[in-house]
């Protein structure tokens, strides 16, 4: 099963690195979309279903925290897992985004393996929830193991 993934970061180079990391993680990617801030990300979500969003916090126009609030307010989007990848490393900020419903928090700088682990974990949980509703299927982590 392929997953649609949205990466939100005002740094084009960071988006490229995350894209490369995700591609190398073994997760089957359907559509890969990018946005430079939260506002752009909401526009993407208006026209394309995304299975997971990876977002920075500190961005112009609309930061990651405000973006998450908007996602959670929307009944159609609220169950999309949002993973934060940010330089902001204070426990207070982590607690804030987790309290708002973030699926996970990864601190920059990161090792590619960390992104892979977190992404597989989050997608596996989301997938299991969906399959429980629909019945049957192999989780992303199991699919990745089966590829070896």
């Amino acid at each position: 099963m392929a997953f649609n993934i949205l990466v939100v970061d005002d740094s084009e180079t960071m988006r490229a690195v995350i894209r490369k990391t995700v591609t190398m993680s073994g997760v089957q990617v359907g559509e890969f979309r990018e946005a430079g801030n939260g506002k752009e990300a909401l526009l993407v979500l208006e026209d394309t279903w995304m299975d997971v969003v990876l977002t920075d916090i500190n961005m112009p126009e609309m930061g990651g925290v405000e973006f998450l609030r908007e996602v959670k307010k929307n009944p159609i989007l609220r169950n999309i897992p949002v993973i934060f990848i940010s330089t902001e490393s204070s426990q207070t900020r982590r607690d804030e985004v987790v309290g708002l419903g973030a699926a996970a928090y990864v601190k920059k700088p990161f090792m590619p393996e960390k992104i892979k682990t977190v992404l597989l974990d989050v997608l596996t949980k989301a997938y299991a929830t969906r399959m429980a509703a629909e019945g049957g299927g192999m989780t992303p982590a199991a699919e990745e193991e089966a590829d070896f």
Partner: protein
Amino acid sequence: MDRIKEEKGVIGDSERKQLNASAVEVFGTMYYTPVELLPDLPTQDSWQVEGQYVKTAISYDGPRRAHLCFYFPRSLAVSVAGGFLGIDEEAVSDQQLIDTMREAANMIVGNFLGQIDPAGECILGIPAAEVVHGFSPEGVVQDGELLAFISDFGFLWMVYNV
């Protein structure tokens, strides 16, 4: 003591160590490039200067505030951006240099802030970067406290100001 130094516009000893730890972690983890903050400025006769630098400025504000301006040698920026993006160094554009070094400064200062402001009360600004010609450490020393990091590409300079 460090807060007194900070109020005078001078970085404190523990902040100096935390800033170094952040820079070492960011450059080591993301760019596989060692850097090290020098305890003292190198003697002026050893100040090799390149033709171009990527100037990157970033601030944080709140209970503590500071403005940090990095001057990355172009050769360092090209090596880092090429490796980061997985492209030949000859193919790296100025925009990619700017974008990569903005992110580097963002990560260094973001991590630094996480250590000195664990309650998360300070707000980190959006970094701004540009390629500059004719940089000299003498030309910026009046802007704040001048610090130098050593790297395989010569000195990486930083001005700290409150």
